[in-house]
């Protein structure tokens, strides 16, 4: 198929969205089906055909999507109704819209390197004690929790329950260290 001249080509726009919660990296194909379902269920087949939604890549906790120029607003509205991908609960936060992928990749690099002033960034995924006999180090309220993701002040933890474990969204101030001692050194 021959490539059309620039004046006859369909104009596209690229949308950069952050995936919440942090640490989740869905399969691009599964994410595309979720996005497509969100668009079709809200606006219908006609609008979805005109919008031409597409997922290009998932990288560094962000996703680059594509739509037709002029449909960015409706596309963003449809993305805000997306609540999960397969069995994973997630949300897409639209960060930027651009005409080129390159500028969005620069924005991703900028986000990855930006540090919130006043916080002590700890962008490290700590290994959880799940499945081991090691006791949890932290507690939220009266329950021990396992840290999944620690990103600055935001902490995602796993609450251990009798039936199943659920993900909790906390901050560093919410956590208490189990077995913390105030006995000073030298005693």
């Amino acid at each position: 198929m021959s490539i059309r001249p620039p004046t006859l080509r369909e104009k596209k726009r690229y949308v950069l969205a952050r995936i919440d919660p942090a640490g989740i990296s869905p399969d691009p194909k599964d994410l595309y089906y979720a996005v497509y379902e969100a668009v079709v269920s809200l606006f219908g087949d006609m609008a979805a055909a005109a919008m031409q939604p597409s997922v290009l890549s998932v990288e560094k906790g962000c996703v680059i999507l594509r739509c037709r120029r002029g449909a960015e607003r409706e596309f963003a509205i449809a993305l805000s109704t997306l609540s999960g991908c397969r069995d994973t609960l997630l949300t897409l936060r639209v960060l930027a819209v651009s005409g080129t992928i390159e500028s969005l990749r620069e924005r991703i690099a900028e986000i990855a390197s930006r540090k919130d002033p006043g916080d002590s960034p700890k962008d490290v995924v700590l290994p959880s004690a799940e499945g081991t006999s090691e006791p949890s180090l932290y507690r939220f309220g009266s329950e021990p929790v396992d840290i999944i993701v620690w990103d600055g002040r935001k902490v995602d933890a796993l609450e251990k329950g009798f039936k199943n474990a659920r993900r909790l969204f906390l901050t560093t101030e919410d956590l208490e260290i189990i077995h913390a001692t105030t006995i000073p050194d030298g005693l």
Partner: protein
Amino acid sequence: MKITDACVFPYPVGDSSVRRFALEARSLGYDSLVAADATAATICGVNIIPGVILVGVSAKDVQSRAKKSRGTGGILSVQMGDNGFNRAVAGTSGIHILRGIATADKQAFDHVAAKIAADNNTALDIDLSPIIFGRGHLRQKAIHRYLDLMVLHRRFEFPLTISSFAGSVLGLRAVRDAAGLCSLFGMDEIDVQAALAGVSRVMVKGEAAVRVI
């Protein structure tokens, strides 16, 4: 102008702590939240307003509860019922918000109840969760109710509030996203801004139209 999410459910009902809600809300553009069963506080520059929702109580119980909570600084909301109940509650002093119009009957909130709500400065809540998480009939019904609500709002000018009804930070939506969702049922930018400031509007005690001196 205040930008308020009129209802969130922090831990233990939800899975996010109040602090995390405040942190996320700040990044999404909000400066206050109404949190169910929370204490008043200011966290990360976000005002946390305690909220209570009355569900399945009689109109008499609503009135007694409204008297008890007067002056506490929180938001008292009532889940809508039938038409007679809604009229009675909308006229009760101390009730700030009526919720649940998306799932209420078609005749639950009519022009008489709208007039009473406007006179009493009682807000109607626009819950975005059926539009975000609902599909098919559930979402269609919610959009239809909100379209009808906007017709009454333009006529009688009662306050509106916008809430995400989020039990998790994943359920929060940015101010821009909320405005986009509200545009689906005919709210423009001015309407959305007024609705986001609706909580601060209902918390101010309205003055009577006529004052005898």
